[in-house]
């Protein structure tokens, strides 16, 4: 067995790592003021925003040479399926784990600004609390009711076309991009205001998903009553930002129209005393 001579591994890509300036909106905790800090981060080929945040966590020194606390962020899967790492990158809400630095640079960016999502209370730095979103999904009864005291047997047969229509709706990862970019969705710091405020596209789309499920449809009247109430589908202003920022390309504006139609029919039926 021969041993290959040890060579210095060449970094991938021809040029040496560049340095990119990160401007980060920081906040020490709920109710604390926000402040900006800047870091120069050496960018390796293939780097993304999270890997740069990891570098900053290991070297928390600002461009002024001041030592600071590591920047806090949230993440999970690192492959754009959990939604935890959602933040505003250069003003636009997206998943930071799939925000490749090379792609940002290709888009003509010379600095990267990171801000927490704008519609949820900040826990710390880039880490926000999306409780309200989960609460709205509960209000929407976004589930299939199968709990009971006896075996319900096999579910109804499914048409592949229906299943395909629902599949894309089911890929929602509750990241909240569609809420953050929506001009009708307001930040509500006070949980008492939650049931007065627009619920946003993702919740409307989940109502459609579970209403179209043959077993989930058992709760359709209650979901549509929820959609007809204040904060429901009629508070959408048709700006259609939601569908453009959804990383899962969920046809949110189609869901909004479909639920708008369903609620109209539901209300007319109620007016004439017909059961849904």
């Amino acid at each position, binding site marked *: 067995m021969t041993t290959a001579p040890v060579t210095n591994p060449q970094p991938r890509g021809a040029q040496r790592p560049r340095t990119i300036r990160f401007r980060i909106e920081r906040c020490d905790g709920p109710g604390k003021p926000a402040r900006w800090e800047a870091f120069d981060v050496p960018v390796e080929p293939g780097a993304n925003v999270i890997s740069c945040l990891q570098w900053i966590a290991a070297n928390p020194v600002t461009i002024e040479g001041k030592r600071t606390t590591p920047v806090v962020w949230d993440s999970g899967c690192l492959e754009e399926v959990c939604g935890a790492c959602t933040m*505003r990158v250069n*003003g*636009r809400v997206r998943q930071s784990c799939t925000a490749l630095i090379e792609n940002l640079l290709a888009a003509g960016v010379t600095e990267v600004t990171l801000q927490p999502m704008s519609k949820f209370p900040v826990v710390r730095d880039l880490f926000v609390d999306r409780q309200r979103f989960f609460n709205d999904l509960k209000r929407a009864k976004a589930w299939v009711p199968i709990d009971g005291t006896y075996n319900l047997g096999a579910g109804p047969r499914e048409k592949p076309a229906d299943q395909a229509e629902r599949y894309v709706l089911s890929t929602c990862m509750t990241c909240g991009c569609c809420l953050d*970019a929506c*001009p*009708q*969705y*307001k930040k509500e710091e006070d949980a008492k205001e939650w049931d*007065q405020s*627009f619920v946003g596209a993702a919740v409307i789309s989940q109502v459609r998903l579970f209403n179209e499920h043959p077993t989930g449809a058992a709760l359709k*009247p*209650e979901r549509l*009553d929820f959609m*007809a*109430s*204040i904060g*429901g589908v*009629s*508070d*959408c*202003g*048709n*700006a*259609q*930002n939601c*569908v*453009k*920022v959804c990383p899962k390309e969920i*046809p949110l*504006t*189609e869901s*909004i*129209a*479909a*639920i*708008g*139609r*369903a*609620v*109209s029919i539901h*209300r007319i039926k109620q007016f004439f005393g017909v059961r849904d």
Partner: protein
Amino acid sequence: MTSASAPPKGNFLDRNHYLLRRLHSLTGVVPIGVFLIVHLVTNSSVVWGLLAHGDKGHAGVETFQHEVNFIHSLPALLLIEVFGLWLPIAFHSVLGVYYAMTARPNNKDYPYQDNWRYTLQRISGYVGVLFIFYHVATLRWGWTFLVPGGTQWTAEHAASTLAMALRGHETDVTLAGLMVAAFYMAGVSLLVFHLANGLWTAAITWGVTVSAAAQRRWGHVCLLIGAGLMLAAWSAVIGFMTLDPAEARQVELRMLAPESAPGTDP
């Protein structure tokens, strides 16, 4: 699990949230949208009347006067105005401003065309309310202190008095008159946009256009409607702006004459 028929809580607006939202959408289309279309077609008759009967020099003024006479011959005109127009417009405006105040425009970070439409819909609503108020107050309710030159619009001299209100003077175009005309240009353009875009979004709101392809197709139709109305609106304002009030007055007097003295047509 709460019962589906639990009565909604809150004040009157909250309890009837959905109904009010839908009525807001409906009134925008019928009667207000339909009226705006009729109104613009009528008023642009000062131009298309000329095109249709080009051989007669003052056909525009005549056609317009004819249309106005027809409207003013309708029975119970004031009732139609109050219940068919002013109340629906007031309802649509008040609720519209109330809803628009909940908007948090974010066009800087999300400069999509649809997002600009969204913001422009709200701006055109605000300006539209001001414009309609000025328009109705000065020309219909006779608040002449708001008209440069103090012109009082009358149905018998529809074209000449309107031209004077837009020009600010009988023989001249004054600066104040130009400002009124510019306000009209902006007001009608924004209102036409508001209607065309409103027709597009109403179809989503009511769930008529569900698929993205259907929304796109209906969008093209709305664009055509908007372009046609814009043409009518601009030709009306420019048509009256460039009309000679004195000549128009002669035409109107001639149209009035046969009634007051039948058989004495010179």
